[in-house]
């Protein structure tokens, strides 16, 4: 071992301490270090190293199976395959985690035998080929096809085993800092023995100090930060305020209305939408709806937090019904992240972007689902949700506008007093007399489309230009003067204009879906949009009315960077990882399916290796039978001497062996007859002319005599 003395014992002791196997760790460590004082060494051939490694691998496999079974793994996985739902897959995940942790803890034991044989082997290293049958087959194949064989990579086991022990010690349950300091000390010890000669002791020590210090600060700091955010979460009375993508709050929406300058949104991908069965995807995905406008904020209503739970029917099926008795025609797959944390239980939380007339959700692995009277759906679940939304029912789950007696009648018709003058002035320009409610909305939409333009740039109102208009609101300024604005202006203005005309309307925010990427759609943060929901009295439905001029999509697209492709690539990778992390992909079952043939191949390799090599070995033994002189009586002598504890090694020639044998005082007297016999035997065996009949008889006779004499000698 090239490690400093006692380091391996220390790391095994440390591992034993951390894993509650202190005595075992101590014993194993001392046994390993005894290789330094015990001079005896094994001559290990490559084949023996392979055998030891195979044994350790089998041991590891057995340990893995044991860890898996002892942690209720088969039962939990069986349940998951029988009833694949959220609870069972969570249980199966817990079982595999527990099994993995257990296995990691045992790894030093599993590979201890390999390490021990390395410590006591004469060579002290092993070729990389020993670890993998594939590498060995590659070498053999190169030899058979007369290619230059690949380089032999020689490895030492000690340092990898050292790191393995540290990793295993990390799978402990202690929460104090003993692991941190123990690992730090052991690593420092190991690194000290390997330090480059060019650095002074002071530089080396201070570098180590900086590394350890920053690791400690990082570890402690993370804990402190976590505590701080928890505190902030609890302190915030408005617990819903934090959990949206770009602050979509089901209670209120602060618009940029009245703000001047350019409004920026990033091109980050926030949603992925894919059609199911080739149906068209809805263009508008709504996140939240608001009813009350107090510039510049839209509020849900006077009664906040009227969320009620949506039942999952049947339980654990992932099927959630938003509108009973309605069946949607089409399905769309939506993937969205839940970015906020519920401070009560730490689960991810977020509002779902849904088609306006969504009636039910399928395959939704949420823990809890709530909606409110204006159709906002709030989900609590894993960080990423991928689900099917059924839509196309033509109706939405939003409460209808005020009927005559309801207390919140006014909400969908209320227009703030200070907005009224501008709205009336604007409506006076439109020829709306005699039109139906629906036609009025379309007229406004048409007017906006032809006379207004989309702009993310807001100029400051020219107060000096219009004296006496200092009380003018932002919406008024937009309607009467600038004629430019972004979607929030158009949506807010439309809602207020319709209300001023006596038509119930609501303000909705969400995403506009238009950008395709292969078979699915991606929705970026800048596709966030706002529009108007208008009550269609004849059908008694809320209808989407998007009055923002269509040019807004192009305007936003122009701002896209050329490097967006790269960012999208990373976003895709992050999405794939999130799918795996939150159990939304099917990788785990695939892994299991892959494991079975891999284990099968391993078993085959071990069995077939034996079977293939046994006939070959037998053939090797059988070959010499054909050579002449195999019937020589000298072999009986050799066997007799071997029985006396003087065996001949395979590579030892007869004369070299005889020199060894006759050094034994008991046999020393036989030197002369033995040498004569060897000469005769050699002539019989290796002289193509062979022996004459007389000589052959002499060999037979003398050998018998010698054998008898040898038996008499004790």
């Amino acid at each position, binding site marked *: 071992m090239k490690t400093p003395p006692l380091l391996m014992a220390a790391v095994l002791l440390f591992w034993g301490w951390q894993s509650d196997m202190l005595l075992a760790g101590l014993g194993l460590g001392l046994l390993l270090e005894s290789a330094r004082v015990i001079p005896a060494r094994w001559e290990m*051939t*490559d084949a023996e190293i392979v055998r030891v490694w195979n044994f350790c691998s089998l041991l590891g496999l057995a340990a893995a199976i044991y860890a898996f079974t002892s942690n209720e793994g088969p039962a939990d996985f069986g349940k998951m395959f029988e009833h694949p739902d959220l609870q069972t897959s969570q249980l199966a995940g817990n079982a595999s985690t527990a099994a993995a942790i257990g296995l990691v803890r045992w790894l030093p034991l599993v590979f201890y035998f390999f390490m021990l044989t390395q410590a006591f082997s004469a060579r002290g*290293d092993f*070729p990389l080929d020993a670890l993998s049958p594939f590498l060995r087959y590659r070498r053999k194949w190169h*030899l058979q096809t007369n290619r*230059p*064989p690949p*380089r*032999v*990579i*020689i490895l030492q086991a000690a340092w990898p085993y050292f790191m393995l022990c540290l990793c295993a010690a990390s799978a402990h349950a202690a929460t104090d800092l003993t692991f941190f300091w123990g690992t730090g000390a052991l690593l420092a010890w190991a690194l000290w023995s390997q330090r480059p000669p060019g650095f002074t002791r002071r530089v080396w020590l201070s570098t180590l100090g900086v590394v350890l210090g920053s690791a400690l600060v990082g570890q402690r700091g993370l804990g402190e930060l976590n505590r701080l955010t928890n505190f902030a979460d609890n302190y915030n009375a408005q617990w819903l305020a934090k959990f949206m993508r770009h602050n979509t709050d089901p209670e209120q929406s602060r618009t940029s209305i009245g703000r001047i300058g350019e409004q920026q949104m990033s091109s980050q991908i926030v949603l992925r939408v894919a059609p199911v069965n080739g149906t068209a995807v809805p263009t508008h995905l709504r996140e939240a709806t608001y009813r009350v406008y107090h510039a510049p904020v839209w509020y849900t209503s006077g009664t906040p937090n009227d969320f009620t739970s949506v039942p999952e029917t049947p339980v654990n099926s992932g099927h959630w019904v938003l509108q009973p008795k309605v069946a949607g025609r089409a399905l769309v797959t939506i993937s969205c992240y839940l970015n906020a944390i519920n401070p009560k239980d730490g689960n991810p939380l977020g509002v779902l972007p849904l088609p306006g007339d969504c009636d039910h959700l399928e395959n939704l692995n949420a823990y809890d689902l709530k909606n409110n009277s204006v159709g906002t759906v709030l989900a609590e679940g894993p960080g990423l949700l991928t689900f099917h939304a059924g839509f196309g029912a033509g109706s939405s789950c939003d409460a209808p506008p005020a009927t005559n007696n309801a207390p919140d009648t006014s909400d969908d018709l209320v227009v703030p007093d200070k907005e009224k003058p501008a709205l009336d002035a604007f409506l006076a320009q439109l020829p709306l007399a005699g039109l139906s409610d629906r036609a009025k909305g379309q007229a406004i939409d048409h007017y906006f489309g032809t006379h207004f333009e989309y702009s993310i740039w807001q100029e400051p109102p020219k107060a000096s230009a219009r004296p006496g208009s200092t009380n003018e609101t932002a919406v008024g300024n937009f309607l009467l003067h600038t004629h430019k604005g972004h979607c929030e202006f158009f949506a807010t203005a439309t809602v207020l204009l319709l209300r001023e005309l006596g038509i119930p309307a609501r303000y909705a925010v969400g995403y506009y879906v238009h950008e395709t990427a292969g078979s699915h759609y991606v929705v970026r943060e800048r596709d966030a949009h706002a529009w108007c929901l208008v009550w269609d009295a004849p059908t008694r439905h809320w209808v989407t009315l998007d009055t923002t001029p269509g040019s807004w999509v192009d305007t936003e697209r122009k701002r896209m960077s050329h490097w967006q492709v790269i960012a999208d690539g990373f976003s895709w990778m992050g999405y794939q990882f999130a799918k795996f992390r939150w159990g939304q992909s099917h990788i785990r079952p695939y892994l299991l399916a892959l494991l079975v043939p891999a284990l099968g191949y391993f078993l085959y390799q071990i069995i077939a290796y034996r079977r293939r090599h046994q006939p070959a070995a037998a053939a090797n033994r059988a070959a*010499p039978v054909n*050579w*002449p002189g195999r019937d020589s009586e000298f072999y009986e002598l*050799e066997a007799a001497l071997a029985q006396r504890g003087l065996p*001949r*090694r*395979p*590579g*030892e*020639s*007869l*004369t*070299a*062996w005889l020199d060894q044998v006759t050094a034994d005082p008991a046999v020393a007297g036989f030197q002369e007859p033995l040498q004569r016999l060897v000469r005769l035997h*050699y*002539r019989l*065996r*290796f*002289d*193509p*002319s062979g022996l004459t009949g007389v000589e052959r008889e002499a060999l037979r006779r003398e050998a018998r005599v010698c054998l008898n004499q040898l038996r008499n000698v004790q």
Partner: protein
Amino acid sequence: MNPETIMAARAVYQKIAGNIGKVIQGQSGATRKLLAALASGGHVLLEDFPGTGKTTLAKALARSIDASFKRIQFTPDLLPSDILGVAIFNQRDQAFHFHEGPIFTNILLADEINRASPRTQSALLEAMGESQVSIDGEHRTLSELFFVIATENPVEFRGTYPLPEAQMDRFAMRFMLGYVSPEEEVSILAAQQSQHPLEALTACVTLTEVLQLKQVVQAMRISDELKRYVVDLVGATRKAAGVQLGASPRASLALMKAAQALALFDGREFVTPEQIQELAIPVIAHRLVMEPQARFAGVTARGVVEGILKSTKVPA
């Protein structure tokens, strides 16, 4: 072959060995190998540190045989024509005349062969392999006894070029002399106190006798089983770990021939496994090209062959 011829051939060996023993002390093993190479028609590469007696051994052998002997001191600026010879234009008769180089001899001492560039070293390839040289498109056959003794310093020494693999393969054997025991070194000092014993050395055998020795060696019997053993030993180097390039069939051939010579020297009429084992390292080891990784790990070609000798089952 009648026993008298064999006895005569053995006597030739003993005479040369005795003659060399007068000059070189404590190197009977090296002399034995050197003569085995001479008798089996192979060439020898002596590798050792300066001053261990390489050149003296070669010169002692040359002086013991009544044959022509030439010596080339290899230097970095030596050219192939300095070895092979050159055709020079004679203005008097308006024709080219070939001037033979030192290679046209019976015994050639290529001293410090690894000091010349590989290009010059390679000039020896054809001569050593086929006993002929091609100069200006003309084949010239070398004499019937053509024996090259090359000496070299270990490759790590300054100003040396490693020999190309093909050139290495042309040498039947490479071995070291090694330092002698202190007692023998004292007797070397005593022997050379007044004059070098080499100068007093005279030829003890004729060229014809050496050629007869070679013929007898070729006739030494070797069983098929031992031929197989030779091939197994050489073949194992091609599969050994850490070896990039194993030994060639030429190595098998050289091992068999040299073992035949040793069998004659040992007073036998057939080859035994001991003779093959004795020569395996000097005949095989220098032909192996080791992998850099294995070389750094301290694996040597000699160690590989030793391992093969230990692990290969010897016929008995």
